[in-house]
């Protein structure tokens, strides 16, 4: 999923006119509004992109609620909750980085950017551990998948149907995998933003790339805010 256009559009300015203004924009105000407007539209496409997955999830959850509950119970909700907290902290540090740029506090900006990326890496680490557990428990869809004799929550005498549980894990891996891919792209964007910040390219007047990167990061956080309850907490009550 080429997210490079998110970076390409945060136009690294040529050194023709004033440092930040691109040739075809009349004023800087127009350019900044265009970039953020473009980014919000791009986030709209991402919402519809994940939307297709959420609809598939909704329909199969309605059809196979018991099997989905059993499969969801086998995932460690604690890890999921910590991951949510990690992402929320990273959103905070992103906002602090932008605030740092606005008040020309270089240390705050760069520190926050680094913190954001550390949180991102922590998220991927925890996600990696979760996937490792799934590999070990043979819960990855495909030939090695086995989900025998797992009781349906609330109906201890009834076993989950492995074929339907496999659909849950298929959706689980596609949704969280796609989200993790967006997280990796996000880390790439923030590395690039860190380099630009390090070179002192951002001033209180011009820090549009930071804001665009921030929008993208917050969006990835919002997607996770929905993924966590829907995938991890389907049928957790005793």
């Amino acid at each position: 999923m080429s997210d490079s256009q998110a970076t390409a559009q945060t136009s690294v300015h040529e050194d023709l006119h004033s440092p930040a203004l691109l040739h075809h924009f009349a004023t800087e105000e127009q350019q900044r509004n265009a970039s953020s407007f473009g980014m919000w539209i791009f986030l709209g496409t991402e919402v519809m992109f994940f939307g297709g997955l959420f609809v598939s999830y909704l329909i199969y959850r309605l059809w196979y609620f018991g099997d989905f509950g059993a499969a969801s119970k086998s995932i460690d909700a604690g890890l999921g909750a910590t991951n949510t907290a990690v992402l929320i902290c990273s959103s905070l540090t992103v906002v602090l980085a932008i605030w740092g740029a606005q008040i020309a506090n270089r240390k705050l900006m760069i520190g926050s950017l680094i913190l954001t990326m550390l949180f991102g890496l922590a998220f991927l680490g925890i996600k990696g551990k979760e996937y490792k557990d799934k590999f070990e428990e043979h819960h990855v869809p495909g030939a090695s998948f086995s989900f025998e004799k797992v009781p349906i929550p609330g109906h201890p005498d009834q076993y989950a149907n492995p074929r339907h549980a496999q659909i849950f894990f298929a959706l689980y891996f596609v949704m969280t995998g796609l989200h993790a891919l967006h997280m990796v792209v996000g880390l790439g964007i923030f590395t690039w933003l860190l380099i630009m910040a390090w070179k002192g390219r951002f001033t209180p007047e011009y820090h549009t790339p930071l804001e665009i990167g921030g929008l993208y990061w917050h969006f990835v956080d919002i997607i996770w805010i929905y993924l966590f309850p829907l995938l991890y907490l389907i049928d957790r009550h005793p």
Partner: protein
Amino acid sequence: MSMATPIVTPVEREDYLNKEYGVASWLLTTDHKRIALLYLISITFFFFIGGFFALLIRLELLTPAGDLVQADTYNKLFTMHGQVMVFFFLIPSIPAVLGNFLIPMMIGAKDLAFPRINLLSWYLYIIAGIMMLHCILTGGVDTGWTFYTPFSTAFSNTKVIEAGLAIFVSGFSSILTGLNFVVTIHRMRAPGMTWSRLPLFVWSHYATSIIQILGTPVIAITLVLVVAERALHLGIFDPKLGGDPLLFQHLFWFYSHPAVYIMILPSMGVVSEVIACFSRKRIFGYHFVALSSLAIAVFGFLVWAHHMFVAGISVYAALVFSLLSYSVAVPSAVKVFNWTATLYKGSIHYDAPMLYAFGFLGLFTMGGLTGLFLAALGIDVHVTDTYFVVAHFHYIMVGGALMGYLGGLHFWWPKISGRLYPEGWARLAALIVFVGFNLTFFPQFILGYVGMPRRYYQYPGEFQVLNVMSTAGATVLGIGYLLPMIYFLWSMRYGKPAPDNPWKAAGLEWQTQSPPTTFNFEKEPVVTWEAYNYDEIDTGHKEEVKVVG
């Protein structure tokens, strides 16, 4: 107008073509006009690939027995014809070529909002094109352009993954074009260019961009799921593992029906411009035509399951979608009536673009009306998946979108190339295309109702006569499409140099030099006149804003 005019070299004025030469100046350009030409060349290439497949299909159907190609090859032929034509010609055609070239000029801007993303959009299109060509040359795919599961995920042993990824990438090229247009139209209009002074071409592209932005991602994720299911045996659409093949059809048609409005809306924009210019009149009911474009874009998202009436959806869902499908027909009808009313008390010229516009009006009306047949549940049960449907969507796509595209190319060719195309040949080509088209696709309506199913490689003998007529029409249509390419290329070299406004048309794009300079306008234009002010132009009351490009 004699044919063999001597080579005429126009007085040397600097424009976007002769500003700089060399491969890098083209492959790394961020000028929306050059990107438009890059798109023009690449989609024409794919158009002739798709057209070649179409001719092979029609040749095979000359005889009831399957004797020209084998069954598998025929299945690959109609699949490739569908995929290449839909994703690599029709969806990018007008937005990427005429839209890219004209929208900045029509709203008085130097370029699109994100020129680099515009170039990225073309590169994504080329990467997707190369992937599709590789897929075609190394075996092709035989699932039909609709990729229905579980055939595409479990039973087809052709290169479904490669074709799916190619269309996935071409989807992002379409999203980026849409995103660029929406931001440009909102942010980059010249002073005075209010929303009610926007040309209808820009309105229709605004509506098209909404569909491109909000529809394409859904087919992107659907293709990701199909590729994942084939590669990793996930089972989301595989009934043996509890998946639902109808879910695929819902997600696929959620994009693919609005996609047909991506194809037709830009042509409607072209026709609005052409009819206004050649009747020397303001469009009748400007606001209604503009708003009906938006209405088509929004209602287009509510109707997708009329492709699935017999696929196994519930009776009540079928009723809901049939009712909604009629709501989307009203704006199209309003547009046709407004165009016809524009001709009233006009001063009508019969130049080639106007002939294409008349052709569009006729064929689109018939295509739209047969859509009413298909939206009626009772009839759809009988005619869906037969040649009636094939004829309906070809009337809309080939009769509507392609005629609009050719009309637009002829109308703005002097502006694009700085040369005039040969008028006589152009009118002849328009006539040939119109006649060839009707001879090809009208018999298919009858074939469809008589009961010949779609995608049939061999058919019972009683359908042969109509098929032979259709194949005859296809050859005439093929010639009709070759002519414009020939005389457009010819005109690049030998055509008379075009004045800045050969048709004396309204619109900012005509107040630039032909061909325009890289930044379109020397100084930013200020718009003080209403859209389609042909009365002022013809009576000359308003001194035209002389903006030397």
